[in-house]
């Protein structure tokens, strides 16, 4: 659904409420423009002779008008603002729900920062147009029309038109200068964030800077950026101050014309003194809607760009979807890879080249290879993170593409390389896929992955928050928590570990492998690693290089083979000289 339609249907569903708020604002403005007229009449009464009761009458009338105006306008303004915020809520919901359907490829192509920008700036920009902008334009139109009507009909058309000329320039100037101000203020923001970035990288590299006595160079670099901020800030100030001077100048000119021309008309008895006073008040009332016209045009321009960006985002189709007729059966979890060649979109080289391997259910496959050899790609294809070519990855003989995504993901438990955790408690991270488990089950999984001792030492045990991306934990602790998160998913028949033991020490690695040995035979296990010690349990090992299987066999066979595997083995066991 295109966002224009979303907004259209949102407004259509609430058309009566919208009409109510427009009507409220209309009434408010119609009432407000009576104030100068009443003041004018009041002044005229002094020439005609007025009593004390008459004075009181006018004062009360002014009060009553003010009260009606304030209440109706406040009501209209609030309803519109409320509607705008409700729409903002719905847009955000749609965005998030849409993101959840998109595949890994999408998230690799778009940085989190860019996507967040949509939620942070584009959505509020649309809301701003829909509440503030809509409210202002309604108010401006009513006020402008009502004021013009009052001045032309009850005072003097010529006076109105002549005095109006200078202030009619106001919206034009705002439309021209407004975007320039925005550009310059963005430049200031950029300069500020450049400075923040330099401070960040400099403080983070403080050891390097101190070890090289490079402080003076850093201070110089910082100075340059700070000077740039001042320069850009002053360019913004120049434009802003000009802007702030021109608008009042124009209304001043209008007022001066009104004063002289109006005075002339009074002298020649073409308008009354009261009308003259009323007119000066009307003139000041006209400035506001004219400024609003300019601002609203800018707001709408701004938000239509945002609306287009949101539209582009919502129109992205998920590239991995459920098959039309998914295969349903009781899955055992045997994995077969059959002549799999895979190339990332936009890449010229194959990430995987004619890979075939069979992992009978309950057995363990080890995948080894240097960084970039295709280990992670292979695992990701089994997870259907990306779509493999048809009939190249089969689970219990069924193409993964013919499985329902939900079924596949219920079947697999996965431990990522980076041990990604959410900033919730360590307990809810472990129980991520099983929100209903009891604490004992969480603790059991934590013991299995050797993270329980760490949890016990934490101030609030399993209820301790782990911070953003698990920042409160070390790399090894994160990995062990991620392993617990996979182990607690007891219904899973396939366990995939993507270099998930790289940050734990060798003793803990041994202990965790001991636990994995315990589920041998029940779960198909695939372990990718570049530390060979993590593959001790493997029934079968494949060695990948540039996307091809260059060797495969059991550990003993590969050692006899005396090729890449044996060489890696020797380096890692300290048997081959690395230096000298």
């Amino acid at each position, binding site marked *: 659904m295109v966002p224009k339609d979303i907004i259209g249907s949102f407004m259509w569903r609430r058309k009566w409420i919208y009409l109510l708020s427009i009507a409220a604002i209309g009434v408010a403005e119609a009432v407000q423009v009576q104030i100068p007229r009443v003041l004018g009449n009041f002044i005229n009464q002094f020439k005609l002779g007025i009593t*004390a009761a008459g*004075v*009181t009458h006018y*004062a009360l009338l*002014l*009060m009553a008008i*003010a*009260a009606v*105006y*304030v209440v109706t306008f*406040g009501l209209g*303004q609030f309803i519109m*603002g409320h509607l705008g915020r409700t729409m903002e809520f719905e847009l955000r919901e749609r965005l*998030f729900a849409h993101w*959840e359907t998109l*595949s890994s490829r999408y998230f690799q192509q778009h940085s989190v920062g860019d996507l*967040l920008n949509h939620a942070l700036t584009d959505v509020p920009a649309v809301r701003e147009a829909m509440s503030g902008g809509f409210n202002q334009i309604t108010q401006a139109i009513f006020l402008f029309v009502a004021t013009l009507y009052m001045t032309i009909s009850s005072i003097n058309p010529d006076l109105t038109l002549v005095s109006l000329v200078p202030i009619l320039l106001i919206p034009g100037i705002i439309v021209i200068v407004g975007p320039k101000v925005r550009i310059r203020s963005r430049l200031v923001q950029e300069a500020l964030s450049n400075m923040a970035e330099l*401070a960040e990288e400099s*403080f*983070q590299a403080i050891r390097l800077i101190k*070890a090289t006595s490079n402080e003076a160079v*850093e201070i110089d670099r*910082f*100075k340059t950026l700070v000077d740039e901020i*001042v320069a850009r800030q*002053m360019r913004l*100030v120049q434009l802003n*101050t000009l802007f702030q*001077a021109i608008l009042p100048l124009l209304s*001043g000119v209008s*007022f*001066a014309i009104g004063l002289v021309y109006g*005075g002339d008309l009074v*002298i020649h008895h073409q308008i009354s*003194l009261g009308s003259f*006073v009323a007119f000066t008040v009307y003139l000041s009332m006209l400035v506001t809607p004219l400024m609003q016209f300019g601002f609203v045009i800018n707001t709408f321009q701004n938000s239509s760009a945002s609306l287009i960006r949101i539209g582009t985002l919502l129109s992205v189709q998920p590239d991995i979807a459920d098959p039309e007729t998914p295969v349903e059966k009781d899955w055992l979890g045997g994995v077969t890879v059959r002549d799999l060649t895979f190339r990332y979109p936009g890449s010229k080289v194959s990430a995987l080249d004619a890979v075939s391997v069979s992992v009978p259910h309950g057995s363990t496959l080890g995948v080894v290879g*240097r*960084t970039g050899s295709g280990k992670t790609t292979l695992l990701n294809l089994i997870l259907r*993170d990306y779509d493999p070519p048809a009939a190249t990855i089969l689970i219990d003989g069924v193409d993964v593409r013919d499985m329902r995504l*939900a079924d596949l*993901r*219920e079947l697999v438990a*996965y431990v990522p390389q980076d041990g990604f955790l*959410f900033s919730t408690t360590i307990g809810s991270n472990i129980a*991520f896929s099983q*929100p209903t488990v009891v604490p004992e089950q969480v603790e059991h999984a934590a013991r299995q992955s050797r993270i329980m001792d760490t949890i016990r030492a934490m101030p609030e045990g399993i209820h301790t928050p782990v911070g953003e*991306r698990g920042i409160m934990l070390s790399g090894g602790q994160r990995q062990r928590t991620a392993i617990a*998160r996979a182990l607690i998913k007891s219904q899973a028949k396939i366990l995939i570990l993507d270099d998930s033991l790289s940050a734990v020490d060798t003793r803990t690695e041994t*202990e965790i492998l*001991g636990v994995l*040995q315990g589920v041998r035979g029940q779960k198909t296990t695939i372990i990718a690693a570049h*530390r060979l*010690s993590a593959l001790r349990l493997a029934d079968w090992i494949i060695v990948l290089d540039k996307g091809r299987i260059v060797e495969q066999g059991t550990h003993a066979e590969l050692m006899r083979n005396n090729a890449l595997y044996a060489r*890696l083995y020797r380096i*890692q*066991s*300290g048997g081959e*000289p*690395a230096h*000298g």
Partner: protein
Amino acid sequence: MAKAQPFDIDREETLSSTSFSAMRRLLAYARPHWSSFLIVVGLVIVYNLTQVVQPWLVKIVIDQDLLAHHPRLHAIAVVGVFYLLVTFVGLVSNFIQNRRLQLTGQTIIRQIRQDLFAHIESLSMRFFDTHETGRLITNVTSDTNRISLFFTNFLLSVIRDGFSIMLVMAAMLLLDWKLALISFIVIPVIALISVLFRNKLRYSYGYTRSQLSRLIGYTAENLGGMRITQLFHQETKQMDQYSKLNQAYTVGNVNEFRWSVLFNRTFDALGNFSVALMAWVGGLAVLHHAIQLGVLYAFTSYIRQFFTPINSLTQQWNTLQSSMISAERIGGVLLTRPEVVEPPAPSTTDASLGRGRVAFEHVSFGYQPGQPILKDIHFQVEPRSFVGFVGQTGAGKSTLMALLTRFYDVQSGAVTIDGVDIRQVGSRDLHRIMAIVQQEVNLFSGTVADNIRLFRADISDRAVEEAAEIAGAAEFIRVMPGGYRSWLTAKGSNLSLGQRQLLAFARALTLNPRILILDEATASLDSHTEMILQQGLTRIAEGRTTLVIAHRLSTIRQADTIYVMDQGRVVEQGTHQHLIELGGYYAELVHRSGPTADVSGAADFPLD
């Protein structure tokens, strides 16, 4: 730091660090600009006067020209021109004042920023251990920004709005003092309503902000972890959570909006009511011929002129508070003294530290009192030798290197280079002869060449390229789209871990150090990449004293001496062969790191 007199710590030792005195000290930064502030005040007064004059002119037109028995158009025209002139003068003075004040504020803040940054850079490692980087960045960016608001908003408002209120009051008193006194009733009412709403508005604004940052934080995290959510099939749960936060934010936002509508409309109503009040009181006065009709007009205009300045003044309390808090934070940083101090009279020059013999003489050290990390470390590394340090995490290897680079001072004993205590050497001289390569390679936003030469102007492009060549980095740099001019970012996602390490090697080489320290430099690499790096390492270590902290034992197999550390002590030392034959701790480490260590034995570990 030449211009940092306001924070000259030696002279102002006794100052307490409350926010008021912190603010006072920051105000000292404004002292050189007093003449600018004087000009600003003058211009503000001119502007305010022109604003007050306008209703008065209309009053003149009404009373003297229009209500006169013989109305004179000529006089009205004169007033009209005068009115334009006044408006113009007001706008010009406001224009100049604005620019002047902004420039002054920016200049002051530039100085504070530079001094603050320079000061932070001068502080010792322990400061960075105990202060989060994020906090320090906030100090440099937003705290300084809030202080600039003090100069550009708070001071301006107090002067401008204060004068504005006083001038309007004066004009009213001049016109008719009795009516003026009655009108002044509205001033406390405006102030009271403004203050009451201000608290409510601030609270609801703060609440909405915190809800928004929770929502944004959650969104950011879930975008980053979307894959995990999908792979664990938890989309519904995460969406529910999101909706709750979204709902909470929307409720807060609507509530905040409700208060702001209420506040603005109340102010509106108050403005109109005071005009009505004026019409009533003033109207009766006109009726009794106590005042002229034009005076009534002027009063209805003036009474509206109270609202803006009073409202703006009440807002400034928040600005003042937040800039005082920021001043206190910045003051706290500026008052911190570097722990590691330069020797008053450096006893040695670069030349005498020429050979590179490193010795630790009975060194003990701990980050916390009572928790020693290094205990009586005593050894000597010969010039141009290659030595390795091994041991478990926490054994004290990295601390050793931090003492050698003098990030910290030893608590007892001494670290010497060629027999000279490093505490007697100026830090520039000391660091000129050594270079350190760490596991994590820090990159800076800049070109590849600048990253290698660390932005130093005295290192030529040629020297950079030579260093890259020797370190083995030239190969990948050449194939980058811009070569040595390619742009890198601090996050450095465009370089692989191996490439970053090679770049760090090149960086160390351009410094041509006599002593080279490698702190777990190759730990995060796969074996193959490590092998390539080893070749580069061999080349750059040539002819230098090289100290290597190793994660993988293979890195230091060939070392002249291996120091085995455990719990802050050197427990074994010797060549690889010697240590293996010794059959002690080192031999056990070697055995344990092998790929075929027994797993079945491990299964015997109790599961809890």
